């Protein structure tokens, strides 16, 4: 199908110009929009992130088509919901600029933020994973048991095995919830270490 040829450079599928067969293009657009509606419905009932392959199964279409339909869904500036790429999948979520009414409705004052120390420990685990208690304490130069316990409790980190050295210390890594908590698609979405990466991120967010 000609759709496959178009797939790599997906930008705005509806704005195809100079097409040899406008009628066929139009039909494709219509079927892609229909696919997008189905995907949106699945994402709505799912709540959390859904992988492309599970979406493809549900809507009975090729993964490449699903990806194109997702692009269509992501480009709707007027929509109340946004499609967020998170934890290896996609989820429907509210827009950050609508946080206040949503909070009022849910009657949740504020989410419990992590403390500064806990964030430091989490950053070390995220970038160095797998990391042991000793690795963390060596970098921070102080004890971190409390923070590790809290992070385990909030399921942002988990035990991923043991290092084969003296004492066989527990190794920690981040969880799927970690990705969702910070809105990351996968670990490669972590802001690059060093001034510029961090500054770029702060600029893009604030």
């Amino acid at each position, binding site marked *: 199908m000609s759709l496959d040829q178009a797939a790599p450079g997906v930008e705005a599928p509806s704005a195809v110009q100079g097409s040899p067969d406008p009628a066929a293009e139009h039909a494709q657009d219509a079927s892609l929009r229909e696919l997008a509606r189905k995907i949106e419905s699945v994402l709505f009932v799912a709540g959390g992130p859904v992988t492309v392959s599970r979406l493809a199964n549900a809507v009975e279409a090729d993964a490449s088509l699903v990806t194109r339909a997702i692009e269509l869904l992501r480009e709707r500036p007027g929509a109340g919901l946004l499609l967020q790429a998170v934890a290896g999948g996609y989820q429907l979520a509210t827009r950050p600029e609508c946080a206040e009414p949503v909070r009022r409705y849910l009657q949740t004052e504020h989410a419990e933020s992590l403390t500064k120390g806990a964030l430091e420990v989490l950053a070390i685990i995220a970038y160095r994973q797998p990391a042991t208690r000793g690795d963390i304490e060596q970098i921070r130069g102080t004890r971190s048991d409390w923070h590790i316990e809290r992070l385990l409790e909030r399921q942002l980190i988990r035990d991923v095995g043991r290092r084969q050295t003296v004492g066989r210390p527990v190794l920690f890594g981040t969880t799927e919830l970690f990705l969702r908590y910070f809105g990351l698609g996968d670990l490669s979405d972590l802001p690059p270490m060093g001034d510029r990466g961090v500054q770029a991120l702060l600029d893009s*967010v604030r």
Partner: protein
Amino acid sequence: MPPATPGEPAPSQAPTSGPHTQDPAIPLSRPATYTVKVPGFEGPLDLLLTLAHQGKIDLTGIAVAELARDFLDRTKHSLDLNEATEALWMLATLVEMKSKLLLPKPPPPEPLPETGESDLPERMEERLADYRAFREAAEALRALEELQQRIFVRAAEDRPSELLLEGVTLDDLFRAFQDVLARARRSKAAEVVDEPVRVADRMAAILAAVARTPDGVAFRDLFPAALARVTTVFIVATFVALLELIKERQVRVHQASALAPILIMAVRA
């Protein structure tokens, strides 16, 4: 990457996020969690802990009990549970470290043979640079956290990190607990500790109460009407039991409006 939010007020301006104020020009200067002043040191508590850990400050010359008293005084004025528990942990760690310092030490094990001292400053420098990089990374994660906290996903069945509190914050719950405690103090002259109280027993009692009352048990009914009859430990243990049950997702807490009673309900299996 998450979408940018131009023109949005910084989340730090929300009235509830006390310690999160920040100056974008110096992103790393987030106000310290809790600052202390002792002979030879004035600064954030976590720095004191770090310096003590590295042996750069002599803990034996510091009255940790006074630090603890200051801390308790300060929590009477304002309390961020998260920060407060972290500070409490740091104080406890200081106490533990100090008590170890005061105990007679066994002779040290033979020194490690490989420690050539020449590269020590370099390694320290390297470690500090590492630490700085991670602190910046932590700042970046904070920015993502703040953004993501403004983004909501439809409530699914499996949200393991979510505490089961509806219309109630942990602060509300804590304040309700402080009320009970204050009433108990007013109603009794002296206290005789008679028998040990176990949190596990209180958990069982709460579970039994919510099982009997599907519409929910009012928070104050978790405690006996005649508060003078029970010990402070009993009240504290009951509150700890409630928190434990919330954490284990065995009960949920609901408050219909600000002035409505706080209700504790069983979580349907």
